[in-house]
């Protein structure tokens, strides 16, 4: 019988668990072992959009801004929110004084300018913004001025995001494409990295924390732990056994089947992060069958998300059948276009196919066993699509092959991926006309352009609702639903805020 010690957390309720609120009995010291899903492909947070890179590197690199518990942008290395000119083109950012890098040097505006310039050159999210940035300058040692070519509302969200992060590093380590040393300003510094064995980070004694109360990853960052060891454990069963045996204090990315076992184990607390993210079928609008909007609408009409999610996650505790692109806890939540979701209507799909003049060309779904739930959804989708009259080819490859093939529009019609719910819609690349989906449409582009340049928050919410409606009308991608993520922690570990990118400042162990 599963004991009710599960920490079931909705994003909207994070505040109740925040370290700032739990000020009792924190103890200084201790070493925490964290089982992560694999070896990060790099320790340079600018270079990768992989979540495992963000999870590790956010402990030693910091950004100018970050997010609070309500996904509002708040300052981190910046002293305050920026002063924005009336035309929305100039952001003047005052920097905090007395911030020390792990190499002992002091952060100044020159380091920030060099870091942001490199971010525009090498980081996926920075490169996407490079055309909008006219200049990044340092009028004095403690001020940075970012000048845009056109107003761009998601700028601060991009500067705050730990994924493909605009991390601030000393100018001296930014000589070329590669950073020469892992040197940041974070509460922990990199001590030793043995690939596939551990990444050892230790408390940075000269860290200067912000004074505001902790709110998710923002505000005060307490350094209770002496040391954190991130241990790559690619096999999910081994992560489960390790946390149950007490070998790890925290284990990320656990299989949903292990939920009951975790709940029944002494000294272990399962953490169900609900909602975590959304699986998505991305359509190829550049080449092949899905360049025809009617065919895409037929796919949308045929699919049965509830069955797909049940096959993928096995239990209703782990998914939600939901049309909205963002859960209710987000300001972006709306129900526009929801009537076109969850149709599971093969007759309507067949009629749409007939209208499109479908000639039996196979619909190629590119997927992988890397994420088993992708494959399971693909299998169910295949049955429903065939019932509607599609010929379906499942192209099941390893993840490395998938990431290569999806860049060639001639090789696929749909590829399956997923994403955590991100703080800001503009961080999702599929809305952009330059993404590999290739969603180019006059009405959409007009809405999206206004969305990214509009600075009024309420108007942006309205514009996003319009954008969501267009997603369901034009079907550039298909959100299958929402899913929850399962993690676990040992009972003697406290101060953890459930998030897709778990962090361990503010965490502490029982004495």
């Amino acid at each position, binding site marked *: 019988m599963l004991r009710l010690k599960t920490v079931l957390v909705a994003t909207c309720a994070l505040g109740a668990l925040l370290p700032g609120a739990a000020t009792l009995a924190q103890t200084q010291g201790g*070493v925490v*072992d964290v089982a992560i899903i694999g*070896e990060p*492909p*790099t320790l340079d947070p600018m*270079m*990768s*959009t*992989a979540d495992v*890179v963000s999870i590790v590197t956010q402990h030693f690199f910091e950004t100018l801004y970050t997010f609070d518990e309500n996904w509002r942008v708040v300052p981190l290395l910046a002293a305050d929110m920026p002063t924005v000119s009336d035309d929305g083109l100039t952001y003047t950012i005052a920097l905090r004084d007395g911030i020390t890098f792990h190499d002992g040097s002091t952060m100044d505006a020159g380091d920030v300018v060099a870091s942001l310039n490199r971010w525009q050159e090498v980081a*996926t*999210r920075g*490169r*996407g913004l490079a055309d909008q940035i006219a200049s990044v300058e340092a009028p004095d040692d403690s001020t940075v001025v970012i000048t845009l070519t056109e107003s761009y509302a998601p700028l601060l969200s991009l500067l705050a995001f730990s*994924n*493909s992060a605009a991390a601030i590093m000393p100018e001296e380590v930014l000589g070329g*494409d*590669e950073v020469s040393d892992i040197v940041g300003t974070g509460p922990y510094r990199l*001590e*030793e990295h*043995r*690939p*596939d*064995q*551990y990444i*050892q980070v230790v408390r940075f004694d000269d860290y200067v924390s912000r004074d505001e109360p902790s709110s998710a990853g923002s505000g005060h960052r307490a350094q209770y732990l002496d040391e954190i*060891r991130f*241990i*790559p*454990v*690619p*096999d999910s*069963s*081994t992560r489960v*056994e*390790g946390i*149950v*045996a*007490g*070998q790890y204090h925290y284990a990320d990315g656990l299989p949903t089947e292990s939920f009951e076992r975790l709940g029944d184990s002494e000294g272990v607390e399962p953490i169900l992060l609900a909602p975590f993210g959304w699986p998505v079928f991305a359509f190829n609008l550049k080449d092949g069958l899905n360049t025809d909007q009617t065919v895409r609408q037929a796919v949308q009409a045929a699919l049965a998300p509830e069955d797909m999610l049940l096959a993928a996650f096995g239990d209703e505790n782990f998914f939600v059948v939901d049309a909205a692109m963002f859960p209710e806890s987000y300001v972006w939540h709306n129900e526009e276009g929801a009537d076109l979701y969850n149709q599971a209507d093969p007759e309507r799909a067949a009629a749409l196919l007939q209208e499109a003049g479908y000639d039996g060309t196979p619909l190629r779904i590119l997927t992988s066993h890397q994420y088993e739930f992708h494959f399971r959804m693909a299998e169910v989708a295949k049955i429903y699509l065939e019932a509607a009259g599609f010929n379906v080819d499942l192209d099941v*490859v*390893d*993840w*490395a*092959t998938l*990431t*290569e*093939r999806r*860049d060639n529009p001639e090789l696929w019609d749909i590829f399956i*991926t997923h*994403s955590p719910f991100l703080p800001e819609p503009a961080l999702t*690349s599929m809305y952009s006309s*330059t*993404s*590999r989906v290739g969603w180019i449409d006059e009405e959409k582009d007009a809405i999206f352009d206004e969305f990214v340049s509009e600075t009024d928050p309420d108007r942006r919410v309205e514009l996003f609702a319009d954008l969501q409606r267009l997603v369901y009308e034009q079907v550039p991608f298909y959100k299958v639903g929402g899913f929850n993520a399962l993690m676990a922690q040992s009972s003697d570990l406290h101060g953890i805020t459930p998030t897709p990118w778990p962090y361990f400042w503010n965490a502490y162990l029982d004495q």
Partner: protein
Amino acid sequence: MLRYILNRVLGMIIVLAIVVTVVFVIVRLAPGDPAALMLGPDAMPEDVVELRARLGLDQPIIAQFLRFVGQIASGDFGESIFFDLPVLEVIGQRAEPTIFLTLFSILIATSIAVPIGIVSAYYRGGLFDQGSISGAMLAASIPSFWMGLILQQYLATDAGWFPVSGYGGPDASFADRMGHLVLPSIVLGVVNSALIIRFTRASMLDVLSDDYVRTARSKGMSERRVVLRHAFKNALIPVVTVIGLTFALLISGAVVTERVFNLPGIGSLVVGAVLRRDYPVIQGTLLVVAGLYVVINFLIDMVYLAIDPRVRY
């Protein structure tokens, strides 16, 4: 003799040259892109193209091959794309767990298999023989990952006698690290003992019916002396061969077992490198492993000389 050794060394060099070429071609023929994997799921296609160029992966295959051969000839195995470290250093970091896992596994396998094989042959057709044959088949049939998970759950998670996985943290002593190898060594030892039991038994059966064994018995020697001094010594050649090949197999990486126990050995290195398309690591590791294979084979031949005076080259 010297001529034989020189011929073998020449043969080894040719084998390694073939391995270099085949490995290079195969890893390049496989689809997949290290740049896309490094940049992560949200990378734009143009970012991938640029990183490929920076890594030199946009060069013609022939140019990449010539550069690779030139590096190998000068003893440089290149640098890992993902770890940003020289390949030989990456392999060196993985050598300890793999070498000790191999040694312990072989020790366990031979300790189990050789006595059972000898007794089984001696009591051919008896209850012990039937039981050992069935046991060997069972051991050979058990998937190593399953046995690993079972041992992990009962001896590590439930009993707490051994660590579940990994190879110890930064402050782990040598003894701690070896403690992490006990369960995987048992798994590999049991699984690999099956073949050695069968070879020992078959080889012993051959020699036990030979004339010199009958002669030894007719001279009134004790059965113990006949079996261990006369029969077993002459039965050793095939047994040494299979032990040597098992050793070579294990040193090249016990892929599944290393993954189940999260051991940072050669096997997990190769698997990780293939999944990440870390070409220099795949090439370098396979070359080192192939080198070890041919050297171990060569050493097995040398051992023949020592244990069987009939063998001459």
